[in-house]
C-alpha cells in the first residue's frame, strides 16, 4: 500500500517548479549583470593592454631593426666610398710618381747633356788654344833651330811664316 503510494506521489520530473523558475531567472540575471559590468570589461581591458604591449614591443623591435639596417647600409656605403677614394688616391700617387720620375730623369739628362756640351766646348777651345800656341811655339823653335843650323837668320817675318807653314803641311802630308 505504502509502496504504491510512493509511486503515485513521485512527481513528473519534466514539470517545472514555480519557485525554481523564479529563482533560476533571478539568479541567472543577477550573475549576468555582475559578470557583464564587473568582469567582462576588466578582462577585455587586460586583453587589450596585453595586445597593445605585444604589438608595441613588435613595433619597437621592427623600428630598431630598421634603424640598424639603415646604419649598416650607411656604413657600407661609407666604406665603399673610402675604398674608392683610396683607390683613386693610390692611382693618382702612382701617376704622379711616374711623372716626377720622368721629369727628374729628363732634367738629369738635360743637365748631363748641358755638362757634356760645355765640357766639349771647353775642351775644343783649349785644344784650339793649344794648337795655336803649339803651332807658334813649334814654329819659333823650328825656325830658331833651322837658323842655328843654317846659320842664317831668317828675320823676315813673312818668309819665316811661309817656311813654317810649308814645313807643317809637309808634316801633315807625311802623316
Amino acid at each position: 500500500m505504502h509502496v504504491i503510494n510512493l509511486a503515485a506521489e513521485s512527481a513528473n520530473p519534466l514539470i517545472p517548479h514555480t519557485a525554481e523558475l523564479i529563482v533560476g531567472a533571478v539568479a541567472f540575471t543577477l550573475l549576468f549583470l555582475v559578470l557583464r559590468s564587473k568582469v567582462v570589461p576588466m578582462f577585455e581591458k587586460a586583453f587589450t593592454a596585453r595586445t597593445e604591449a605585444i604589438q608595441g614591443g613588435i613595433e619597437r623591435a621592427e623600428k630598431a631593426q630598421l634603424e640598424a639596417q639603415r646604419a649598416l647600409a650607411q656604413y657600407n656605403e661609407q666604406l665603399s666610398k673610402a675604398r674608392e677614394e683610396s683607390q683613386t688616391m693610390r692611382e693618382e700617387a702612382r701617376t704622379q710618381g711616374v711623372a716626377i720620375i720622368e721629369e727628374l730623369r729628363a732634367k738629369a739628362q738635360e743637365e748631363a747633356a748641358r755638362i757634356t756640351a760645355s765640357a766639349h766646348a771647353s775642351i775644343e777651345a783649349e785644344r784650339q788654344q793649344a794648337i795655336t800656341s803649339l803651332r807658334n811655339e813649334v814654329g819659333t823653335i823650328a825656325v830658331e833651330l833651322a837658323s842655328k843650323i843654317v846659320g842664317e837668320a831668317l828675320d823676315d817675318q813673312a818668309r819665316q811664316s811661309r817656311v813654317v807653314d810649308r814645313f807643317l803641311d809637309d808634316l801633315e802630308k807625311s802623316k
Partner: protein
Amino acid sequence: MPLVHLLRTGEGFVPPSTNDFNLPPVIAGNEYTTKPILLVFLSVIMISVFFILASRKAAIVPSKLQFAGESIYGFVRNDLARDNIGHDFMRFVPYLFTLFTFILTNNIFGIVPLLQFPAMSHVSFPYVLAIFTFITFHYIGIRKQGIRKYMKDIMFMPGVPKAAYILLTPLELATFFIVRPLTLSLRLFANMFAGHLLLLVFILGGDHLLKGVIGLKLISPFAFAFGIGLTFFEFMVQCLQAYIFTLLTALYIAGALADEH
C-alpha cells in the same frame, strides 16, 4: 503488506527514484529553501566572487588567479563566441560567458563532496536558460532583419523548390520555435538527471550490499569503485553539457545574424 514490512525493517533495497531529487526544504514549508535553489544562489556568489577577484587587477602579466579566470573567459570569448558568431561577437560574450560558468558550476556541484547535487537535474533551471536563449536569438534575428524577412527566411527557406515548402515550412517552424528550446533544455536536464541517478544507484547500492550477508559484502567494494569511476565520467559529462549548451546558443545567435539560414 510484505513490501511495507521489508521497507520498515530496512532489509529491502529501495532503488533510487525521481523522488530522490525532491528533497524537503531546509526551512520546513518554505519552498525557496530547497537544496537546488540554495545551490543556485551559492553558484552565483561563487562565480561572481571568483571572477571579480580574478579580473580585478587586469594586469598585463597575469597572476595565477587571473590566468585561471582568463583561461575560462578566453575560451568562451574566442572559441565559442568569436569563432562561431564572427565580427560582431563581443555583444554576446557576457551572455555566453554567464551561461557557461553558471551551467558548469551548477553541474560540477553534482560531484562536489557535501553539495553533491546538480541543480540542472531540476528541469526548471534548464527551462529558464533555454527560454533566455530562445528570446535572445529570436530577438536579435528580428531586430537585424525585421520580423517579415526573419519569418519569411524561416518559413520559406531560400533556394528550395516550391513543392518542398509543404514539408519544409512546418518542419522549420517546429525547429525554430519548439525543437530548439526543448532539446536545449532537455539535453542538459536529462544528462544531469541520469548522471545523478546513476551515481545514486552505485553508491546506495554499494551501501546496501555492505549491510547484506558476507557474500554481498564482498561485492560491495566493486559497486563503490564503479561509483567512483562514474564520478570521473560524470565530471566529463558535466563539462561537456555546459560546453554544448553554450556552443548551441552561439550557433543559434550566429544563424539569426546571418542573412540566410
